[in-house]
């Protein structure tokens, strides 16, 4: 299956890119396991927020083909 991964704000700066496309073999993968693929050197920072298909979720969320996962820092709008 294929997962689109997007990074915003300081997470994009930290990753050095805005987006990844990740091909996953096998049945399932969680957000946390996906993070291990895109950032093998670094554990998921504690204050990072996670969205799947534009809804907030957590790192234990199981992903399916075509999901869009986003990693970003605490929001500061308004």
């Amino acid at each position, binding site marked *: 299956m294929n997962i689109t991964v997007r990074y915003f704000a300081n997470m994009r700066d930290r990753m050095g890119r805005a987006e990844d496309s990740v091909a996953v073999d096998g049945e399932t993968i969680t957000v946390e396991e996906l993070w291990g693929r895109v950032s093998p050197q670094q554990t998921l920072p504690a204050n990072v*927020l996670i969205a799947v298909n534009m809804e907030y979720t957590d790192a234990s969320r199981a992903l399916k083909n075509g999901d869009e996962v*986003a990693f970003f820092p605490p929001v*500061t*709008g308004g």
Partner: protein
Amino acid sequence: MKVIVQEGLFDPYQVTRDYEARCLPVGKHGAVVTFVGTMRDFNDGHNVSAMFLEHYPGMTERHIEAVCQEAAEKWDVIDALVLHRHGDISVSEPIVLVAVWSAHRAHAFDACRYIINYLKERAPFWKREATTQGHQRWVEHNTEDPGVNSQGTKQKTA
């Protein structure tokens, strides 16, 4: 209800008047409460000269719409309008407008406060400030409103 996320300067009072003239039924509302958030020239102990506001297109609109819907379920809201900018913003310019129309003022005040508070908590926007010393930095968290406690009543600051 209407949510707009746009780049570029806007006049929040003109936008409110135009929306009311175009979309509100005549004679039904007894109160309109507007909140306009503007850009300060200071933040977190630094002098700030300009700001860039990033957002997550699609998710941002979806979550502001959800907050407006929640407000309409909690209070008697006739209509609500939210306009939030992204992109480059200069000092003293408006960043966000929340306007709420209701038959009575208490509902309009409470719904407006709810929308701006939860927008700040949930809508995916990120501010990057340029300080007057020439540094760029991501704002790490929104500041608490120092004059307001969690019940929403005014407190004197020392």
